[in-house]
């Protein structure tokens, strides 16, 4: 059951609201939940990782959300890692949504990881033009990343095959 991961960190499913948890405490809680997500992901528990990242986002998103730099850093990391989990769990649509949220925060073209994952997700959906577009942007943001180059080559090959049949 996915709920086992939700409860494993000792924090409730949503942040306490009676009284509401102060934003600083929520950010600290989100950070510890995200760290738990990283540990689960490293253990190969992708679903557990995703549950933790989504929980961290619930803590960060509660109104009024904190716009302080630690909150933004945590939000970007949680969104980006959740996108990776979605990709691994064969849910590219959600992965694209999560990457777009990262790019909205960081500025379009500025987060190579998010662009890379967005490109992978588009390729998984068979949307090769968009995949090449995102991966080219990722290559500009991270020109020495071998993974980006390799994925771009694969996407270009797929696009060629799709357009010309070979």
């Amino acid at each position: 059951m996915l709920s086992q991961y939700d409860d494993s960190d000792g924090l409730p499913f949503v942040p306490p609201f009676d009284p509401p948890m102060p934003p600083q405490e929520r950010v600290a809680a989100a950070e510890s939940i995200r760290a738990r997500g990283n540990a689960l992901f490293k253990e190969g528990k992708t679903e557990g990782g995703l549950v933790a990242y989504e929980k961290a986002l619930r803590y960060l998103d509660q109104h009024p959300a904190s716009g302080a730099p630690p909150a933004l850093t945590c939000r970007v990391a949680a969104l980006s890692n959740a996108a990776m989990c979605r990709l691994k769990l064969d849910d590219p649509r959600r992965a694209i949504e999560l990457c777009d949220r990262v790019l909205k925060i960081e500025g379009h073209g500025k987060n190579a990881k998010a662009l890379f994952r967005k490109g992978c997700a588009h390729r998984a959906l068979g949307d090769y033009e968009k995949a090449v577009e995102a991966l080219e942007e990722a290559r500009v943001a991270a020109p020495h990343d071998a993974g980006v180059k390799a994925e771009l080559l694969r996407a270009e090959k797929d696009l060629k095959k799709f357009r010309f049949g070979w």
Partner: protein
Amino acid sequence: MARANATAAPHALARAQMKKQGQQPDQNDAMLDVMADSQTVDIVPLIPALIPGGFISVTLYVDDKGNAKELPLNSRATALVSACGANPTDVLGDAFVARAYDNEAEDMKRLDFSLRDMEPSAKWFREAFRLKAVLVLTREGTPQDEAANKVPRTAHVPSSAHLLCQRA
């Protein structure tokens, strides 16, 4: 439903609000009086009554003239609405939460909403997020029953309860 807690006459507040917005309150005095006297509530669905949720809804009721009456921010209800994944909204004044069964074919039945349901680990929060995920899949073209099966059910909806959530 919602108790109005205005500290000043709603008419005066509504006029002040109109002036702030650059409108002429004097021209519409009668209409303004009618508006200020009316008691209406904003209905905020925290969980809408849907087939995949067994037609059980959770709703927050709040004075819809809270802004004009300059009611204080209800930080507990604001955080509650946010905890259900709703867009950021400031809830002003007293708020009530209620659970109901409504399949739109028979009479609506009120269900209990207990103090335990006001804990952040209450199962119905999971249900709110599950239904959101089901709705997204449905909007993308997945049939509703298939979408409901794709999103695991982790929530159990209690049959007992009543209301709550007065201004913190």
